[in-house]
């Protein structure tokens, strides 16, 4: 259950963004999670309210975008979606592939509400 640690790290990043942009509150947070990041989206959702409590992001909604595992074949060049424990080319079956997606654990966007009177 390292998802709580991940959420705490996420909240720290969001707090930094909120501070830098004079946010009054954070409305929503968009993150991308790939299957090879070792983080389970559903567990993140459960852990998130615990980490966000008492912070500027307390009432923010967490939007998790999931992405597939993708590999590019070194033999035939095809790029295909695969499952995490079978990283072989979906076109020709060769196991010499490079992972091109699925490892993401990324904060993408933070939607904030600022005080309308604030000067930027």
């Amino acid at each position, binding site marked *: 259950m*390292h998802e709580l*640690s991940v959420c705490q790290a996420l909240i720290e990043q969001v707090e930094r963004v909120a501070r830098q942009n004079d946010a009054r509150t954070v409305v929503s947070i968009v993150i991308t999670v790939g299957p*090879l990041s070792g983080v389970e989206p559903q567990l993140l959702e459960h852990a998130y309210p615990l980490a966000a409590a008492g912070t500027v992001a307390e009432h923010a909604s967490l939007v998790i975008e999931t992405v597939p595992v993708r590999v590019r074949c070194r033999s035939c060049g095809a790029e295909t979606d695969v499952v995490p*424990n079978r990283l072989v080319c979906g076109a020709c079956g060769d196991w010499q592939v490079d992972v091109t997606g699925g490892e993401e654990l990324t904060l993408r966007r933070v939607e904030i509400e*600022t005080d309308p009177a604030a000067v930027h």
Partner: protein
Amino acid sequence: MCRDCGCSLGPAATRAPLAAPTGVAGKFETIEVITAILGENDRVAAHNREHFDGHGVLALNLMSSPGAGKTALLEATIRALGGRLRIAVVEGDLATENDADRIRACGVPAVQISTGNACHLDATMVHDAVHDIALAGLDVLFIENVGNLVCPASFDLGQHRNVTLLSVPEGDDKPAKYPVMFRAADLTLITKTDLLAYITEFSTGRAHASLRQIGYSGETIELTSRGGAGFDAWLAWLDREVAAQRERTRRGETLRPQVQPEGAHAHAAEPHVRR
């Protein structure tokens, strides 16, 4: 491909801002960020690595299930080396000093990190532990992670190499079941091979095939900590890595273990990083 960090994230990066709720005072803004969520851990890990490199110490992160033989491997390694390499150990467990006591009994300094209920070590825990270890004069710092095939793979500690153990009693399909962990390994040790005679269900061929199927590109050594050819191969790997670390230190270079692309991105500004 994303133009910011080269990750595989597509056009979503330029998607329209989320709709703001209506009827609420204030101005809404959407801030595009694109940053590694574990960026702060990565920063502390890089700091740890600077400490290790500053003293020419090779840092190895040992990961496996509980009971795969990490501590037994360390005990046997310390005894076999007979002081030829200067070693210190950071032990991670939820509770007890048992493992640190076992290492100290071999005449090597050890610091126990008791994580409470935390399922993994992170860079800050290692940083605090390393302050209790005299790095000067050390050759190798072993970091024995919490026994767990899931969480430790996601946290960079500042190590140079990941060593993952797969013990014979666990079954030869562990890489297929825990692909993230085994993909993170630079070296996989198939341990307790003395039990192959009794646990006939385990096929080393299938274990290797399972590793291949998850795109594993590191080395694999079959061994028992009771000694033999495999154990000698492990000691030879260790010697090679210590020599390589000395060479890197001499050149002012460093090395990260197998990492996820966005972790690599976070460290892209570091000079002289060799993969």
